[in-house]
């Protein structure tokens, strides 16, 4: 039983980490039709910049605050000054954008590799957990406090995103943009600014996940790619563009990965992919996605 509870919490922790990544990705796709394969790069940028901040200030909290800001800024600039102008020039979003951001992911991995590994000689780094979150807590089982913190953070972000999208004017504009962006434009909203802000926020969440993972796991060159795949699976399971689906998708994927690793290790590597393949074959629009437009 304790073993099960332990794995359940681990699964929840992983789910929340993936959720932080996936929610940005899915909203960006829903709003702008951009499958941002560079999302993993923003996660990396957050983690590496968080590490740099941590090295200077030696404070986890400051690096959690400042680290993701670089992702935010880069995301905003990328959407506003690069992607949007390209879309306006007739680069129809879907595949061009997926390929372009895919190239960007390669570029970022190479750049980070060049700076941190080839120049500074750093390979596996991590951010120290803050005092108070570094040990274990007794909740029936001895469980690492930090992981509980990650779970709490994920739930808070989920709540915040839901409130933002569902209960504020900004959210109303974004939801309207998902439905019909031309109409939103016609009503006098600077939709490009909204796009860039949402893109930036999504990247900020990815950066946040990066710093959080930097303290819980480790920071290395493959982290962006490693997290990207489960993130994509989550987004497909939930339905591209659906925040609610994203939350449940994250729970399903996080639990599947953790529990299969604990109980059926032989299946662990395939479980998520099988899920993804089955979903795409039987319900390509995901649990909460809309039915795709005909052909």
């Amino acid at each position, binding site marked *: 039983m304790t073993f099960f509870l332990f794995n359940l919490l681990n699964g929840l922790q992983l789910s929340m980490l993936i959720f932080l990544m996936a929610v940005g990705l899915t909203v960006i796709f829903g709003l702008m039709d951009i499958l941002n394969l560079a999302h993993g790069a923003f996660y990396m940028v957050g983690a590496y910049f968080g590490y740099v901040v941590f090295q200077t200030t030696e404070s986890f909290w400051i690096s959690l605050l400042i680290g993701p800001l670089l992702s935010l800024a880069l995301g905003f600039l990328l959407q506003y000054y690069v992607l949007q102008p390209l879309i306006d020039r007739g680069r129809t979003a879907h595949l061009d954008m997926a390929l372009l951001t895919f190239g960007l992911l390669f570029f970022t991995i190479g*750049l980070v590799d060049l700076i941190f590994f080839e120049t500074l000689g750093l390979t596996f780094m991590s951010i120290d957990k803050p005092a108070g979150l570094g040990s274990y807590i007794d909740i029936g089982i001895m469980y690492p406090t930090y992981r509980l913190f990650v779970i709490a953070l994920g739930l808070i972000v989920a709540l915040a995103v839901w409130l933002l999208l569902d209960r504020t004017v900004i959210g109303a504009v974004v939801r309207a943009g998902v439905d019909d962006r031309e109409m939103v434009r016609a009503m006098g909203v600077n939709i490009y600014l909204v796009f860039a802000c949402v893109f930036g926020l999504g990247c900020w969440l990815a950066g946040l996940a990066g710093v959080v993972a930097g303290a819980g796991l480790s920071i290395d060159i493959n982290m962006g790619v490693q997290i990207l795949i489960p993130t994509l699976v989550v987004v497909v399971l939930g339905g591209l563009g659906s925040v609610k689906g994203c939350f449940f998708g994250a729970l399903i994927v996080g639990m599947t990965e953790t529990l299969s690793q604990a109980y059926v290790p032989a299946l662990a590597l395939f479980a998520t992919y099988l899920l993804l393949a089955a979903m795409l074959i039987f319900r390509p629009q995901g649990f909460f996605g809309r039915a795709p437009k005909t052909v």
Partner: protein
Amino acid sequence: MEQPQSDSYQGQSGGDVSSHDPMEPQAAREHKTFLLTSLAGLLFLIAIPFLVGEYYVSLASEILIFAILTSGVNLLLGYTGLVSLGHAAFMGVGAYATAIGSSLLGYPVWFVMLASITVSLVIAYGIGLLSVRTKGVQFLLITLAFGQMFHAIAEKTRYTGGDDGMTNIPRIDLSLIGLDADHDRVFYFFVLVCFVIALALLRLVVDSPFGRVLVGIRENEKRMLALGYSTFPYKALAFGISGMLAGLAGSLWVQHSFFVNPHIMTWQMSGEALLMVIIGGSKAFFGPLLGAAFYVLAKDFLSDITEAYLMFFGLLFVLVVAFFHGGIAGFIARIFNRTGGPAGKDDQ
């Protein structure tokens, strides 16, 4: 440089298929240009081993092997308008089938190669039947998922050495015609023969009515459906053929490098294949070859300077997608066709 007629590969541009009737005189002229280009290219490829040192001959083999892979990928990307991020899996299937057959089971390599190609075709066709139900971004994701699944299988299988892979894989036995494929120059010619056969077959496919339907699907799938074509089996078979070429590339690759490990089927590998196709030019028949050549040579050059060569390719990839869809082939075609050839709107 022959150019398939399109301005974009995502199948949403709504171009008119019927205006590119193969009976047009322009098509005949293009066919002639194609034959002349191929012949000149072939002579150059035959000349390579006599012109450069052993090391570069080995690089040239690498280029041709990648060109087989990327030409296959381009049947989907350039001709059918489907972007697959999982083709490394079929390269891996071909590679592992060859390694298992020749190294573990001890069958002769020529037989194992034929078997590997068949196995890749069958597996790719099966995966194709499932994948082509989706399109666009979903297709990209599902091929990625299947690719990762094959990678996971290769990593987990103890029989084939798991993550370490297998070594000492033999090359094809050419003693019947008095040659030894262990020499890189001899092996290069063997790869060249495979390359020529593969591309000739691909050309037949592309020029056949079947290939025309694929282009039609890329341009406007709805219209093809309205014309009475059931597009599903066409796409699935295109996927199978493209996977078969990837399998052939994999089979040659293990012989070239004498070993195989799961790295050959990572999604980075699939990504690099896409990179080669797009840099080379997805709209030209020989674009993938140019892309492979550029990729292998640039990688060789850059890896002397830095391990972080991905940075340059990533940036180049972004630039080509953003500003120059024609890639290298488009660039060359533009130089030769200044007075308005069949250049698409992307080649402004």
